[in-house]
């Protein structure tokens, strides 16, 4: 899962139509044990005032259309030695946001390519400095590396602010109000906790960081509320670790049982490797699906909620076919893969609540231009960290 809440909301399509919410709710009630539902067992509080509407997100982009935009983006980026890449990024985002619809309105990406270019130049230049420094002096290199480490939480918060501020739906922007200082303190505490508990505090730490990222978002004047509990994270991450250990177990067994055959026949070696990667990928897809579902299913914006039902197997098939397509086409099917992911995510995401999403512009966000504008100075350098 990425911290790109607004993008995830935005990158969305063509849903399995008009299933009444009431029936789906009862369906989930009986399927509470399905792991990938990621905490649908204990859903976020439901208000009677919210109404009973259920609207699918739809994604109307097509691989053929996006392919042409993508190849032109790549070509112009190469010809301009990377300068156009900032415009390419904005066009890509605008394409995926613009094709994501909810209740007849599409999402909108508003970033200025120039601020993205500036941010990339500053950060790219600095990283080049660090790279060169390692050949000059170890002290200088370590000093700069430490500086990068210290700056990272700040850049993450700036990126979140920038992304949220430049995402809009129905002409009302999203916002992110978390502070860099808060994230510093949080990361320090959570790092310490993870070390002191020998890793057992890790799911709690992940939950706490996700809480910081998600609950500090807002749409207009409506703050995001997130009702996920640490226990959800413990369940999901425990299953992920168990799957990963299964993968390790498979590889050990394969090597012990077949060590004589393995090194004779490359086919057997590849088969063992494939088994390992298969189980690993399963664990990866499971974690992605479960955390993504948890994020949306426990999210409340105003009186509105979401319903995400990514399936481990569906995601696994999607990633596997994308991977094969990209490798066999030497990268030319990348746009096809991106559109498929966006379409699948949208198909599996629904909005619960009345059709009229009534939200006011946040006067604090509107008046305090500094929030978005300051972030815009540095732009979005693309720093993300997984939740």
């Amino acid at each position, binding site marked *: 899962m990425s911290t790109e809440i607004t993008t995830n909301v935005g990158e969305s399509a063509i849903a399995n139509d008009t299933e009444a919410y009431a029936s789906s709710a009862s369906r989930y009630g009986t399927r509470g044990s399905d792991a990938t539902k990621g905490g649908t067992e204990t859903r976020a509080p439901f208000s009677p005032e919210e109404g009973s509407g259920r609207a699918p997100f*739809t994604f*109307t*982009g097509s691989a053929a*259309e*996006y*392919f*042409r*935009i993508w*190849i*032109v983006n*790549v*070509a112009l980026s*190469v010809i301009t030695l990377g300068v156009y*890449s900032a415009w390419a990024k904005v*066009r*890509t985002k*605008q*394409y995926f946001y*613009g*094709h994501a*619809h909810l*209740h*007849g*309105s*599409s999402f*909108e990406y508003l970033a200025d390519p120039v601020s993205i270019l500036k941010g990339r130049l500053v950060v790219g230049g600095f990283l080049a400095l660090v*790279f060169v420094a390692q*050949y*000059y002096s170890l002290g200088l290199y370590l000093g700069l590396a430490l500086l990068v480490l210290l700056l990272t939480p700040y850049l993450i918060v700036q990126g979140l602010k920038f992304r949220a501020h430049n995402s809009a*739906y*129905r*002409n*009302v922007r999203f916002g992110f109000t978390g502070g860099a200082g808060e994230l510093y303190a949080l990361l320090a505490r959570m790092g310490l906790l993870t070390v002191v508990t020998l890793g057992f505090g890790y799911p709690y730490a992940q939950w706490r960081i996700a809480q910081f990222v998600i609950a500090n978002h807002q749409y*207009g004047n409506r703050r995001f509320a997130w009702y996920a509990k640490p226990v959800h994270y413990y369940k999901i991450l425990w299953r992920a670790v168990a799957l990963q250990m299964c993968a390790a177990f498979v590889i050990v067994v394969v090597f012990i049982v077949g060590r004589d055959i393995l090194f004779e026949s490359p086919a057997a070696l590849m088969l063992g490797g494939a088994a390992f990667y298969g189980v690993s*990928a399963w664990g*990866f897809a499971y974690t*992605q699906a479960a955390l993504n579902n948890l994020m949306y299913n426990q999210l409340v914006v105003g009186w509105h909620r979401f319903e995400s039902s990514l399936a481990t197997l569906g995601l696994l098939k999607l*990633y596997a076919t*994308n*991977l094969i397509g*990209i*490798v066999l086409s*030497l*990268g*030319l099917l*990348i*746009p096809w*893969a*991106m559109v498929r*992911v966006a379409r699948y995510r949208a198909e599996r995401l629904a909005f619960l609540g009345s059709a*009229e*999403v*009534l*939200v*006011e*512009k946040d006067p604090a966000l509107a008046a305090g231009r500094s929030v978005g504008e300051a972030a815009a100075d540095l732009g979005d350098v693309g720093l993300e960290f997984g939740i």
Partner: protein
Amino acid sequence: MGSALQEGSARSDATQPGPGAAAIGFAANYYDGNSSRVHPVRATVVAGMLVTQGEDGKVMRRDPVAALLISPQLGLTVRSIRLSDGAKLETDDHVAIDALERQRGTGGAHRVLHRIETNWRVTAASVVVMVAIATAGFYWGVPALARRAALAMPDALAYDLGRGTLSMLDRAWFKPTELTPARRAELEAKFAELAAYYPHTPLRLVFRRAMPNAFALPDGTIIVTDELVALAEHDDEILAVVAHEIGHVHERHALRMAIENSVVALLAFTYIGDATQASALVASLPTVLANGHFSRTHELEADSFASGLLKRASIPLHRFADILRRLDREVPGASESMNDYFSSHPGTEERARRFVNSASR
């Protein structure tokens, strides 16, 4: 998509004759920017003003056409028109918006971009050009760039790169040599003779125990294993391998490899990373494949350097071919350096033949 927008494209009347000039009108959703309320409206251009009317036909506002901010066309995504006070119109009536932009003479650059993006011929040409650039960049661009960067680096700095590598290798791979001091002194003396023909970098010969092989560190340290010494049937064969390793030092292959791999990894992550969640796995693939290609090039470069150095030192070139073939026979795979088992090296026989043939040149 809302019904207002779909109807909009159906009854687009951009081409219908109106009073005076061709009237431009389209259905749209209006958002005032203060709330998320949707107002289905109809917008019409009248005498240089965009008139927005509600469903009841009441005029909601008039904006000068010249002051409108119209979003560029991007595939079939919805077009938005920003009004002066932060309000916005959203429509998918691309025909009407196009006519509006033409009428006021704006959006030309973006129209060109959109035309490029929707033209299959340009797309096909882009694919061909990109594949050509990627191939050329991979075979010539990146190696040439890395070579220039590596050779431009001051000597002291380049040698610094290998500082600490030997002690690390000692801990991880090597055992102390078991050659007698006399044997070592003998080989060192011959090495000094050879090294005299290469005055650019101070060279140093050390002995270790591992598999039959030789290694070069960027600081000019050449490591020869006891096993290689045992395998050699003539001391000149050892010197021939050492000459090859000096080639690696001379061409700064360690540094070039680092630069080449970083550049490929950076590009792979930039272009592939966005596409798939499993980015690390996919993006590392080109890096692994490229690594094999680069190291193959480096081996051949070191070979050609060695043949030059051996000629100057009057050591017969077949010595290198001899030990290369023997290495390949006795320890398959050992003639390749340790870190690129997965790479496709030039075949040993091909290298040996190429080496001996260079004598005639």
